[in-house]
């Protein structure tokens, strides 16, 4: 394909060819497959009007489901932040036998289908499961409680923090740490005031990614959640329930809210990444 004639360029983006083709195809594909269908979602609730929309969202059951989905995702993201930092540190800074296998397995939640994860987790944490049995002897029930939802969402978000931190940890030179040590800081002080702040942007990015991923999760949660309205019913399930009641507008309303919050999260994420890039 010859370089595009300048006829339709409103400015010269670059000396390279293919701008029109690549951007055109990108926009077309994006619009047809993502934007137009999402528009259908956004438009649908309006058939019940703004007041109807507000009513759906004010309903206690909907509020609970959203709180559960977002709340459990937040807790799961927090767990993944703490342990993800630990795992990333261990994988980058230490050597131990089998490290490569461990490193590879971190990506399992990316590769394993959600339904498979769902039935595996619900089998594992059921009252007669390998983990569920000893836990229930101590009075802790995981399956069919919000705790089960948190466990499933922790699984789902696990790789995000680790994979976001690893390249940063690898890159991070030890000079700053060594300088701090020479200046008399203890190891702990060094970690707290030199290493941790340097990792913070990536840590937050990873946590935000894990959170965004967890909020809408369905397949792995649905087998282990209790689905009790107001207690252990996740928002995506509520969408399905409303759909099956023929309340398409209501289902779409919840979908729009989740979409809006996800969009805001994404924007924040991208801003975070821009900030951390600027800090380098």
């Amino acid at each position, binding site marked *: *394909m010859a*370089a595009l004639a300048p006829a339709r360029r409103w400015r010269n983006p*670059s000396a*390279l060819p*293919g701008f029109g083709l*690549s951007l055109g*195809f*990108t926009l077309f*594909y*994006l619009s047809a*497959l*993502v*934007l137009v269908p999402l528009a*259908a979602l956004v438009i*649908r609730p309006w058939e019940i009007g703004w007041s109807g929309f507000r009513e759906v969202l004010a309903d206690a059951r909907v509020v609970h489901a959203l709180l559960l989905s977002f709340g459990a995702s937040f807790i799961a993201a927090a767990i993944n932040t703490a342990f993800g930092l*630990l*795992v990333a540190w261990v994988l980058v800074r*230490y050597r131990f036998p089998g490290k490569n296998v*461990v*490193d*590879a*397995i*971190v*990506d*399992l939640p*990316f*590769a*394993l*289908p*959600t*339904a*498979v994860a769902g*039935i*595996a987790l619900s089998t594992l944490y059921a009252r007669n*499961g*390998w*983990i569920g049995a000893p836990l229930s002897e101590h009075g802790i029930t995981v399956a069919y409680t919000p705790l089960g939802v948190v*466990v499933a969402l922790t*699984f789902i978000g*696990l790789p995000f923090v680790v994979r976001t931190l690893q390249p940063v940890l690898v890159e991070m030179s030890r000079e700053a740490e*060594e300088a701090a*040590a*020479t200046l008399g800081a203890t*190891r702990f002080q060094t970690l707290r005031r030199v290493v941790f702040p340097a990792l913070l942007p990536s840590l937050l990015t990873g946590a935000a990614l894990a959170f*965004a*991923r967890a909020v*809408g*999760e*369905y*397949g792995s949660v649905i087998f282990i959640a209790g689905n009790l309205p107001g207690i252990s019913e996740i*928002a*995506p399930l509520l*969408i399905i329930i409303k*759909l099956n009641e023929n309340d*398409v507008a209501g*289902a779409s309303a919840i979908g729009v809210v989740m*979409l809006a919050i996800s*969009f805001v999260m*994404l924007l924040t994420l*991208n801003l975070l990444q821009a900030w951390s890039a600027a800090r380098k």
Partner: protein
Amino acid sequence: MTHRAETLRPTEDHPLLRVALIAVALAFLGAFLVLPLVTVFHEAFSDGLAAVWAALREADAQSAIGLTLITAAIAVPLNAAFGVAASWAVAKFDFPGKGLLVTLIDLPFSVSPVVSGLIYVLVFGLQGWFGDWLRQHDVKIIFALPGIVLATIFVTFPFVARELIPLMTDQGREEEEAAVSLGASGWSTFRRVTLPNIKWGLLYGVLLCNARAMGEFGAVSVVSGHIRGLTDTMPLHIEALYNDYQYVAAFAVASVLACLALVTLTLKSVLEWRYGDEIAAVHHH
């Protein structure tokens, strides 16, 4: 280990601490990752190999496997083509709205799978925008293969693009500009300069995209129609078996997908191991 505290280098952690941290990390990963994986295989093989084989040879399982493969075979190349086009546009050119475009490309990543299926029902379902038109022309989208493919494309939309955009941005434009200034055409430049540089990123993206495409459950569940032997993908077939009290069979099919996951991870690791230096070199991170 015979280090004494005073002989530790300033950026090393105390060996006991190291052991403790490694142990905790492994315990966490073991509980959350390894055990579920082991559970799948344990349940699958609890009746022996013959039962697993029978479950996989069964007609509905075979058509589920076929449907999953066809869906991935359509969705993944399309998303790969898109990923390449989008990263070319974003990385090699400057234009206003680039940040917004990237955010929009990322959007499906954080949309709930249930919503991802719902939107296509809203557009193509009988009560949706094009429903009547489609019915009149006897075109089946929802509750048939096209709907499943669309939902899968949506859910795996950003995988390749997300991998390639930062990569190509990092790599900059100098090499391509040099090629163009030497008289190479656009395609030629792409084929001989860009493609070799991005091939590992592309491969990663395709691997992850494929794994997700084959394993997608929520979105496909909404648009599938659950017709046994026709519109059940493997994850849906697993759910169906689970609901039919055929737990061993359900886990047997699940173990196929789990194996696929392990193969994906292994491939990724092998690639990283063998071509690690090349990857680091093109990554400029």
